[in-house]
């Protein structure tokens, strides 16, 4: 348990980050987009410098994954990854204000097969979507919500001040966010039956034994949620991976991969493992293309 001084320091740190975020968000209303993105890049770089333990996690992950050849390369990519995360927050705020059903294709290129596009445009067709912390995952959801209703399951931020502030006005008429702590499979099934596309992040460590499966990601075993595979197996809804890579200033390419086909074996554990590994492989392929946009600074490979 954290002692009083540690709790006080943690609260102070949360307030400092909240203050920086408020400053950045206030600036988005008046400053040019280019300036704002450069400013948030600088904040990301600053955090990489002043949080060496967090930076170390990113550097170690990059080296262990074989994405960076040496310490210097890992630090260079790690710093860019922190900038990418910082930029993601600013982009998300800008996107809320500026991306509309009329102009979203000015910001987003949708990379999908004709079959995926047909499913996306079928108003009755729900789908299960796996996503990951790459590029701008909120823009990915917002872009798809311009075509059809999207419900996103998310993990609330550890910083309660940022969480409250960023969550107000986060959704849209076709975009809904559901805290993972208020989520239930029955609710998800109803959303899918109503034609929603249900998006869940599958690249975070899961500690609850009944809810996880062990897959390989960048050649190393890690615990991953079973929920996406189980939702697909139970509902037979089409299964996709969706990731939005940043290609320029407020420009994104949404990789909508799928529908991912899987022959069920009749063995639940085997099917869950097979599907979750396939989804993870797709995420790894895209993360290798944009390594500086993946969130390396979290403990993905915990035991």
């Amino acid at each position, binding site marked *: 348990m954290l002692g009083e001084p540690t709790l006080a320091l943690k609260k102070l740190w949360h307030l400092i980050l909240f203050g920086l975020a408020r400053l950045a968000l206030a600036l988005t209303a008046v400053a040019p987009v280019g300036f704002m993105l450069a400013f948030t890049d600088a904040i990301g770089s600053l955090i990489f410098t002043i949080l060496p333990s967090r930076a170390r996690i990113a550097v170690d992950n990059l080296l262990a994954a074989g994405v960076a050849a040496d310490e210097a390369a890992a630090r260079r990519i790690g710093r860019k990854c922190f900038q990418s995360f910082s930029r993601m927050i600013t982009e998300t705020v800008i996107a809320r204000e500026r991306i509309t059903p009329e102009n979203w294709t000015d910001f987003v290129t949708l990379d999908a097969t004709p079959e995926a596009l047909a499913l996306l445009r079928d108003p009755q067709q*729900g789908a299960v979507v796996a996503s990951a912390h790459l590029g701008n995952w909120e823009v990915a959801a917002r872009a798809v919500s311009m075509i059809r209703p999207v419900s996103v399951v998310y993990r609330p931020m550890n910083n309660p001040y940022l969480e409250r502030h960023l969550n107000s006005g986060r959704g849209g008429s076709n975009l809904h966010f559901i805290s993972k702590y208020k989520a*239930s*499979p*029955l609710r998800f*099934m*109803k959303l*899918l*039956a109503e034609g929603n596309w249900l998006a869940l992040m599958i690249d975070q460590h899961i500690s*609850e034994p*009944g*809810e996880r499966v062990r897959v390989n990601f960048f050649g190393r075993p890690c615990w991953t949620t*079973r*929920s996406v595979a*189980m*939702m697909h*197996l*139970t*509902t*037979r*809804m089409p299964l996709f991976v969706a990731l939005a890579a940043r290609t320029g200033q407020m420009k994104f390419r949404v990789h909508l991969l799928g529908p991912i086909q899987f022959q069920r074996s*009749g063995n*639940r554990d085997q*099917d869950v493992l097979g599907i979750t590994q396939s989804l993870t492989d797709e995420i790894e392929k895209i993360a290798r293309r944009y390594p500086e946009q993946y969130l390396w600074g979290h403990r993905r490979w915990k035991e």
Partner: protein
Amino acid sequence: MTREQIIARLKALLQKQTEFKGDVSTIHEATKIDQMGFDSISILDFMYDIEADFNVQTEVADLVKMQNVKDLVDYLASKLAAH
């Protein structure tokens, strides 16, 4: 298969589930599905196991309408009768 046999098989499936934390002995036809004792995704495991064990294919639009065990038994009985 009788209704009693269907319920007995459903209870047996739940007892085999390591993730199920509810009390199987308290389950009867009037038991609400959301009060059976499922935590998180164990209800999805249960539905997968029902399909495999009863050799039927369920539809999500039908599953979300079910309120209690009676609805589930009715549904399975009609699926099995159609075989």
